[in-house]
């Protein structure tokens, strides 16, 4: 497989996983809540595929894509969302609270950013040469604690990449209702160099992230990457206040999977599609048959 084909496959796995979640939610297979990253798959794959094995990832409520791009097991994620014993965290965490290898997520906006700084400082102190990546959304730029964290990251030269996935909306609030000024300048104020991209091309995100991660590793200092992107699905499930036409237009212009697909041969596209379809189906069915989580013997 070429790198392009691999990235295409990884994005498609996220897409088909999350489409399945949204469909099956309606049928009551899942409960609680979920946040899909349909439309933003290029961020997850483009960034995470550039990490070294010991690097650490902090992610938020919209974390399925990050987990899958990191190599997380699809059945374990389905199972976690279904509340099964075999879930990533045995059903304790659910959709937005997972830990797998060096990936950690939490559902409180902003709080993971200082934690990422602490992790980066710990890695530096241990001389492990690992770096940390933290993902936040545009809406989370409203949380004060992240600026304390930016300050400390810069002050103490934390090997940290801060990725802002700016999908121009926070739940239902358009960015222009919530954000003053310029995102890049928020980082620059703390002496953190920031790169802004406006693309759904996974190869472009990958190339730029590769370069930034190299700087983070070599300089032992933070960088920021602002990824302008588009969310095609609802914030959670069925709670999209945007009109269908608006969303359709976004899909037409900014679908990372369609963009990639155009560059691949139709043969490889159809074989990858078939492979992913089978993977998702199998993972879903196994998870569905897995035993339900219980409190027995677990204080």
């Amino acid at each position, binding site marked *: 497989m070429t790198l392009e084909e691999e990235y295409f496959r990884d994005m498609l796995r996220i897409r088909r996983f999350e489409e399945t979640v949204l469909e099956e939610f309606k049928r009551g297979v899942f409960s609680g809540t979920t946040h899909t990253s349909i439309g933003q798959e290029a961020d997850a794959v483009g960034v995470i595929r550039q990490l070294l094995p010991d690097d650490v990832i902090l992610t938020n409520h919209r974390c399925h894509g990050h987990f899958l791009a990191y190599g997380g097991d699809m059945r374990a994620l389905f199972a976690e969302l279904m509340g099964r014993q075999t879930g990533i965290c045995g059903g*304790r965490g659910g959709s937005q609270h997972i830990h797998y290898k060096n990936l950690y997520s939490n559902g409180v906006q902003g709080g993971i950013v200082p934690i990422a*700084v602490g*992790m980066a400082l710990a890695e530096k102190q241990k001389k492990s040469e690992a770096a940390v990546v933290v993902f936040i959304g545009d809406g989370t730029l409203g949380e004060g604690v992240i600026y304390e964290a930016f300050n*400390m990251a810069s002050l103490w030269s934390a090997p940290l990449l801060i990725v802002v996935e700016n999908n121009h909306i926070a739940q239902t609030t358009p960015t222009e209702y919530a954000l003053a000024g310029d995102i890049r300048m928020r980082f620059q104020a703390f002496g953190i160099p920031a790169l802004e991209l406006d693309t759904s091309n996974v190869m472009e995100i990958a190339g730029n992230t590769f370069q930034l991660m190299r700087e983070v590793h070599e300089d032992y200092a933070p960088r920021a990457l602002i990824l302008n992107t588009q969310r095609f699905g609802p914030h959670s499930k069925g709670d999209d206040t945007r009109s269908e036409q608006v969303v359709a237009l976004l899909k037409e212009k900014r679908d990372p999977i369609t963009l990639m697909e155009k560059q691949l041969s139709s043969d490889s596209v159809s074989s990858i599609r078939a492979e992913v379809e089978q993977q998702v189906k199998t993972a879903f069915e196994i998870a569905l048959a897995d035993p339900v989580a219980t409190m027995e013997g677990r204080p």
Partner: protein
Amino acid sequence: MKTTVLESLNQGLMAALKADATVHLLGEDILDPYGGAFKVTRGCSTAFPERVIPTPISEAGLTGVTAGMALRGLRPVLEIMFGDFTTLVADQLINHISKFRWMYNDSVTLPLVIRTPMGGRRGYGPTHSQSLEKLFMGVPGLTVLAPANFSIDTHSPGSLLENSILYTDSPVLFIENKMQYLQPLLTTEILSDFDVELRFDPSDSEEQFPIYCLRIKGAPPATVTISAYGFCGELARQAQSKLAFEEEIFSQLIIPTRLSPFALQPLMESVARTGKCLLVEEGTRSLGWGAEVAALLAETLGDKLKQVKRLAALETPVPAAVSLEKSMLPQQEDIEALLRKMSA
């Protein structure tokens, strides 16, 4: 010269820094020569310059930083300059730190200690004098400790702190009290009038969190049980002694060092005998530590519990004026008055 609680805590920090290179101290103004607003960290930055980190005034962010450090293999200790500012720490403590181990299905540990001084009686006013620890008691996954001013066997405020830093893999909120700092440590020699028994909860298999049980030596059986922690523990001890020698009112005093999760033994045993319990705390009275302990006693002892009383701060902010503060916070005389009433 007698060792003070402050010196003991300082020795605990130094010992922990010395014992384990993953221990790091963070906090505002903790560098020498200042050594922290209350001097608990004095000398640490001189001895361990690489691992004592002066920080910006960013309590919430710093708490997150310590969480990240702990998740990735360090043992950070964070000083919050005044306990009042634990409100800024609350999101990290409640929604992040205390949850991670459990919600990640026991796949991580968070060995971290957040130390902070609570308490009034120094005229610092409404935002620098509170005892807010009740807000954090009962948070699953969080251990709340308060040292007592004793040095008995191997146990002291410093050893409680040192052991929390070095051997506790779950997050600890370590509540100091400003009035405790300058108190001398009481040893068995100094406490020659007392029988002091050290007890440990069965869940505390490493015997890290002593529960001090005090009686006047050779006294007849106690008619009232008192329980208090931190500086109120010392006020209660003085009241206990005074009433025993001056008015022949005999009580047993139980001073826990682990407030949450709370262990009902040996308090329950004592109250089962006396039937009466006085609970003293410096935080406001409603929905606090005393309320929880009283409920536990009532649930467990049924009609063996004849009387329970709480003494706590009034339900107002802590005033700055000395006279006002005195009437707002529990005093030794208040403990004595209640003991008299209860033993009548």
